[in-house]
């Protein structure tokens, strides 16, 4: 075989090894099931394993907050008797809460507790974003921001699944955007890259995160 013939053959190799159309949807189903559908459990496992004390502390803080705002019913009727008795509500006492939702607690107090925790968290997040420098600082300074972001990330994830967020789509959307920004800030610790801060600032600006944060703080304060 001469050179020209061999060169032709090499040039035509892509045609000789034609690729069939990829079954994109079929493959995605498998990938989605394997990664995302089993992710809820695995993600919480990952972050609670990597920062177990942090997760415990955040859960405890929110729990304590809820506990402080939640009066227990010492002499009240049991949920079963309350829901089963028409005379109980007719006698002027508070109507019974739906039996599936926190039957022993005052739900409005629980909402207050979540609102208070959310408010505190939003303030901290706003402070972090406002103090984020425009240019990369020392590695130590980056690590301080990254640590703070990691702390807030734990609370963000707890709040996303809390009643405060599930009942308020605006707040949920804000928390989800914050989660993305905080993930990026938390990664400053591992890979300090010149463009990273620019991208974080871009994400904050594009999502209008700071003004949404301020407005969320104002809303929660005014409803207190």
């Amino acid at each position: 075989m001469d050179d020209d013939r061999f060169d032709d053959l090499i040039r035509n190799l892509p045609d000789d090894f034609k690729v069939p159309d990829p079954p994109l949807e079929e493959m995605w189903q498998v990938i989605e099931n394997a990664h995302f559908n089993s992710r809820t459990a695995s993600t919480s496992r990952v972050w609670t394993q990597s920062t177990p004390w942090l997760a415990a502390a955040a859960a405890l803080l929110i729990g304590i907050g809820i506990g402080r705002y939640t009066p227990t019913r010492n002499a009240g009727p049991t949920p079963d008797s309350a829901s089963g008795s028409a005379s109980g509500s007719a006698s002027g006492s508070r109507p019974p809460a739906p039996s599936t939702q926190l039957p022993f607690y005052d739900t409005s107090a629980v909402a207050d507790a979540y609102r208070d925790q959310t408010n505190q968290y939003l303030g901290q997040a706003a402070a972090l974003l406002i103090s984020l420098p425009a240019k990369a600082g020392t590695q130590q300074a980056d690590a301080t921001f990254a640590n703070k972001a990691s702390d807030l990330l734990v609370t963000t994830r707890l709040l996303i699944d809390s009643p405060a967020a599930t009942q308020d789509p605006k707040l949920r959307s804000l928390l989800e955007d914050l989660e993305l920004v905080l993930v990026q800030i938390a990664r400053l610790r591992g890979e300090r890259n010149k463009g990273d801060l620019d991208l974080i600032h871009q994400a904050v600006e594009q999502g209008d995160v700071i003004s949404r944060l301020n407005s969320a703080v104002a809303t929660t304060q005014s409803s207190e």
Partner: protein
Amino acid sequence: MNERQLIARVIAGDRLAGRALYDTHAPRVYSLAYRLSGDAEKAREFTQDTFIRAFSRLAQFRGDAAFSTWLHRITVTVVSNARRSEVRIAREVTLDEAHSIEAAPEAEPDLKESIARAVEELSEAYRATLIMHDIEGYTHAEIAEILGVPEGTCKSRLSAARAQLREALAAFKE
């Protein structure tokens, strides 16, 4: 939204961002997997495996190389690992059945079949280099980064692979 933001979203568990990354890269990954394996069903499995591994290790992606390079490196590793175990099994089968199999009468193969066979018979490193360069169109720099070898090694592998291919096809005059 740029790729870095998409990656951050996938790490945070956003499946739409995962789908966007997948849509961008899956056709090329599948093409590479198909050409390295020569089999559509295997290419499907290798592509799935590549993305499942990539998504689960996304937090380790440091952005030193392009995301596509990182992804294609995973693809090559997935395919190579699978081929190594296939070769091991094939060897065991060949040894076990050596006495019971009679040699089939050799038919005159056509050029396409001969090329496919000659490419298949190249060593793993030569084969991957030839396929990525001459069939998939990667540059030497890209191949070097994906395979983790110097660019010079990549060029010499391609040259050796072509020489072996040429020798294997010497019987074809036209």
